[in-house]
């Protein structure tokens, strides 16, 4: 008999919000036509797309014509970086980014460098917060076209000093791109940015919908082949039923965000305290205070991360890991590496609207025994 399933990986993909399911099913019936055409079915689809855009823009506090739907959060991040650089190529070819950006941003940066551009990586401290003095110096250098800063770390939860970073960018006249994938629908998004992206499956929307917001007056040029969709910012027809579901669930998630944060943050506090107290030789990482309300990361000394994930999965717990053995590249998480914290035996737990205190309690009750068993199997007890 298998243990009841406890899903604790919302930072990868949150379970679908009930509103997303309802909207998706309704839009499958009503929103299948191409919204760019001129007949009745297309006009209906156009109305749904316009309404979704208005709703998402209103939730984010931006203008509807500043917001485009993309085929994923990754595509949105690629568009933000490469489009922001392309729009200011006359200023220079330098990108500034933190050491803890999402891999989508780093891969876009690699593409930029391979094409002859430059990239400056700004370090973070042990808690995973970007060093503001280094950031300010980097964005003030000549030839910087764009600066990219994640709003809050998707791996360790540390909220970044976006307001200070934005002030430094404004002083230097450099547009700021904020990857807000872990903030949108959960926590307030700070101002001061010129480009912002998010991803629907992080807030309980369907997979395959990203948001790209480009503020008026920002020099941004699509890095993709020309296409008229989405104000020319992202090519291809949108997955309209998924977009409608994304917008509806974003509004619902944002409406509940403060209450959910108030409910989940104490559960994360509990996990941080109990894991540190009850699992020997564990390092709980990330900022204990200035952090996302729903996410916590820790590393267990001498434990193989992949073995830990499988052991937790056998007991019904779904979590993710930044340990090298759990990645396809066999490299440790660049975020843990940049922080200089233990990377093996790593577990990231991220909570969501369906997470109950009883589930967290069961996780906390079972984790120490699982770690002890793995250490006993590896013969590392007492080291």
């Amino acid at each position, binding site marked *: 008999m298998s243990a009841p399933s406890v899903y604790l990986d919302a930072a990868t993909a949150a379970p679908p919000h009930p509103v997303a399911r309802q909207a998706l099913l309704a839009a499958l019936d009503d929103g299948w036509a191409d919204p760019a055409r001129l007949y009745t079915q297309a006009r209906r689809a156009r109305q749904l797309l316009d309404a979704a855009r208005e709703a998402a823009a209103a939730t984010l506090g931006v203008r509807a014509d500043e917001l485009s739907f993309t085929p994923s959060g990754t595509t949105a991040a690629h568009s933000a970086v490469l489009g922001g650089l392309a729009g200011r190529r006359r200023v220079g070819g330098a990108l500034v980014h933190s050491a803890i950006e999402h891999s989508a941003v780093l891969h876009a940066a690699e593409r930029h460098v391979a094409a002859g551009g430059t990239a400056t990586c700004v370090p973070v401290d042990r808690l995973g917060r970007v060093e503001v003095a280094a950031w300010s110096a980097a964005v003030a250098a000549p030839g910087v076209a764009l600066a990219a800063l994640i709003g809050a770390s998707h791996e360790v939860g540390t909220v970044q000093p976006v307001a200070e970073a934005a002030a430094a960018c404004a002083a230097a006249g450099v547009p700021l791109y904020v990857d807000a994938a872990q903030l949108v629908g959960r926590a307030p998004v700070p101002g001061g940015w010129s480009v912002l992206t998010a991803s629907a499956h992080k807030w309980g929307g369907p997979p395959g919908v990203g948001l790209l917001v480009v503020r008026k007056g920002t020099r941004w040029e699509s890095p993709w082949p020309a296409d008229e969709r989405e104000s020319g910012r992202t090519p291809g027809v949108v997955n309209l039923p998924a977009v409608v579901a994304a917008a509806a669930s974003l509004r619902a998630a944002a409406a509940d965000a403060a209450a959910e944060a108030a409910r989940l943050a104490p559960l994360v506090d509990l996990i941080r305290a109990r894991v540190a107290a009850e699992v020997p030789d564990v390092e709980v990482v990330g900022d204990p205070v200035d952090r996302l309300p729903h996410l916590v990361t820790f590393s267990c000394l001498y434990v193989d991360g992949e073995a830990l994930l499988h052991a937790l999965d056998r007991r019904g717990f779904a979590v993710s890991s930044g340990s090298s*053995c759990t990645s396809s590249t066999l490299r440790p998480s660049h975020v843990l590496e940049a922080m*200089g914290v*233990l990377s093996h035996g790593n577990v990231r737990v991220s909570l969501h609207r369906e997470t109950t205190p009883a589930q967290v309690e069961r996780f906390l009750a079972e984790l120490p025994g699982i770690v002890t068993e793995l250490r006993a199997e590896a013969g590392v007890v007492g080291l």
Partner: protein
Amino acid sequence: MTGPDEVTRPAAPTAPAEVLDCRGQRCPLPVIGLARRLPELPVGAVLRVLADDPAAAVDIPAWCRMRGQEFVAAHSEGPGYEVRRTH
């Protein structure tokens, strides 16, 4: 990437007392090897751990910090990581 004081500090003038070859091992095995061997050396001795798993570059300095041992230097040959037993 570790703190700058940990990676740029010059190597100790004394040669390492011992070399522990953990090449070909995946983390956490090199760290476990270090944790087993270092207490067998005298206080003040330096152990050089050879480890080609990229996680070792992160995890060996982190282990030193957690255990209060001294991370002396990282070398690109090996790659090698020197740790001094301080207690």
